[in-house]
């Protein structure tokens, strides 16, 4: 198979594998399961899998781009968008859901102008709905960068965002 398999028109993005990552790819290339190992390493470095890097990984491992995307989308662990500087995770476990988790998401989407699963234009915040985070007693709950906020109403949100904006 030739490297032409991942030849691209238009821009896939500017991110590139670092020399360390290239070395990692070369080391793993002959081994089974190499795609997933390399992608783990890529996400560790960038915090997500940039599109240009997914294409570069395919080319260097000599596998079809579709195979790389099959793996990226199969595992919830891999992300394809750059995470916000602050990640907001809104719990959608049963308790939180019943107590208004969706209202929190709706309000956040309004306040931040970006939708669930994406990042604000300035890259400051990313919103994500997640499964139960185990704080059902505090429902509805969200976390910002891992810090838990419970018993929330929509009115609490502007205050919380203010604590993180620009930090």
């Amino acid at each position, binding site marked *: 198979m030739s490297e032409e398999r991942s030849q691209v028109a238009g821009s896939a993005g500017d991110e590139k594998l670092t020399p360390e990552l290239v070395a990692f790819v070369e080391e793993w290339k002959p081994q089974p399961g190499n795609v997933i190992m390399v992608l783990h390493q890529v996400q560790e470095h960038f915090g997500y899998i940039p*599109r240009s890097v997914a*294409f570069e990984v395919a080319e260097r491992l000599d596998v079809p781009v579709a195979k790389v995307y099959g793996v990226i989308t*199969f595992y919830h662990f891999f992300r394809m968008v750059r995470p916000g500087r602050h990640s907001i995770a809104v719990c959608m476990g049963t308790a939180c859901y019943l107590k208004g988790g969706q209202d929190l998401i709706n309000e956040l989407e309004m306040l931040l102008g970006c939708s669930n699963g994406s990042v604000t234009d300035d890259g400051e915040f990313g919103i994500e709905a997640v499964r139960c985070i185990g704080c059902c007693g505090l429902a509805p709950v969200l976390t910002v960068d891992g810090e838990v906020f419970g018993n929330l109403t929509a009115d609490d949100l502007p205050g919380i965002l203010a604590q993180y904006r620009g930090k």
Partner: protein
Amino acid sequence: MTKLEINGIAVEVPEGTTILKAAELVGVKVPRLCYHEDCEPWGACGICVVKVEGSPKMVRACATPCGDGMQVTTHDTELYDVRRTVLQLILSRHPNECLSCARSGNCELQTLSEEFGIREFDFPKRLSELPIDRSTPSIEVNPVKCISCGRCAAVCQQMQGVWALEFLGRGDEMRIAPAADVQLNDSPCIKCGQCSAHCPVGAIYEKSDSKQVHVALADEEKYCVVQIAPAVRVAIGEAFGYESGEILTGKLYAALRRLGFKAVFDTNFSADLTIMEEGNEFLQRMKGDGPLPLITSCCPAWTDYMEKFASDFVPNFSTAKSPQQMMGAVAKTYYAESIGVKPENIFMVSIMPCTAKKYELTRTEDMYSTGYKDVDVVLTTRELSRMIKSAGVDFRNLPEEEADSILGTYAGAGTLFGVTGGVMEAALRTAVTLMTGKKLPKVEFEDVRGLEGVKEAALDVDGQEVRIAVAHTMSNIEQVLDKVRAAREKGEETPYHFIEVMACRGGCIGGGGQPHGATDEVRSMRIAGIYKDDEKSVVRCSHENPEIQRIYKDFLGEPLSEKAHQYLHTHYKSRPVYKLKD
């Protein structure tokens, strides 16, 4: 050999045979949805479960090899109930839109629902909301109808080696799509349509262009002419209750006239024309003028593949256009002049076994060599059979008619374009004659026939060795190209002088636009039909076709003349595999 019993019937099968295949041998059909004999089984749908004595779990017949002494039960009440539940679950993810579906009447899911007597649905519907991908000129992909069986991805990856389609996501969110969030037209897809020919339901289907044809036929200003490709005549009968392989050329001509076409031409004529150009191109290159191997270029899915994945072979490609495009070019010039109709008023329709032919129409500016679109619309075999039925034409009772002069007569060589090895055989008939200056003692070249993925031969032409290779089913081509590349790198002589490639299994007779249900058995019957059509032709070689001789005398001059180049040749370039937008 492995001995086992299926429903109490003893059977002996070669080692590795699956239970599903063994059951077929004793006349038992195990239901299936994801499995297709063209691909390795992957056991996705679960409808084929059977019981094996002593095994606590039901097993998937499509993916489980027979074992010695196995006692298999394929049908009982419990299995019926399990299959019915599997079916109900699949139906809960599939809309009830049979009335407006491209597969209605021969959908594999519809058939199973019928057989299981489904009258109501046990589970609430949960349908995908993803949009239809209409980006290519050839096929459409409707994720709402997809039952996630995975056949299309298996075909695209294993048979075609293209990897345009892949399963993305998992569980409920799983979908069939190209990587990197591109539309199919910006993906590696070569438009071969094999996914549409294999999808068991109506989730992938040809883009329909019959409306355009109806409009043109009703337009008094337009002079509608039509051509039919070789592979159509031996397959369209399947839509009208004939056996596969039945040659229906005469009835097809008649049907097209009844639809309102003013002249009916045959792509076999322009296949002969292609041979004249390509055969002479081959001779030239054999004499040292131009790179070897010469590679055939009449399959647009293959040219798209080559431009994306093997553009190091651009100089090796025959510049001769495909028969479809040659026909368009001469219909709007030579024929138009002969009947005194302005080329802009000629509306050229092609009936093709192929979805990629729809893409070929606008492939490059060379496809407008007459100053207009050389061929206006392509209809696949499937679309034409619908059009014939909806026009009330009683196909089976049609008389046999002849094609129209001056673009209708064909040699047996032309019809061979419909099968793998056929272009090579047709080209050899003419090229060898030209090389030796002698009439061929025998016109058949058996080495290039049959369903083997790669066929090779070395011919002795008056002491000169001519080495050829024929590949079909797209994934088989890389091994042939790699041999040429290896010789190139080492500075050795080329392993082949001439290579024929067709993207689809069996060649055009197995094309992505042909009637559904192609298996190797069906393909072999269609292939036999093509060879029969060749045998019953009075003239077997393209250069002996009187209408071919006439078009050179009256219009083109010589093969490879300036005029021939203007209308009958094209060029190729490297293209990106993915087109990304920010």
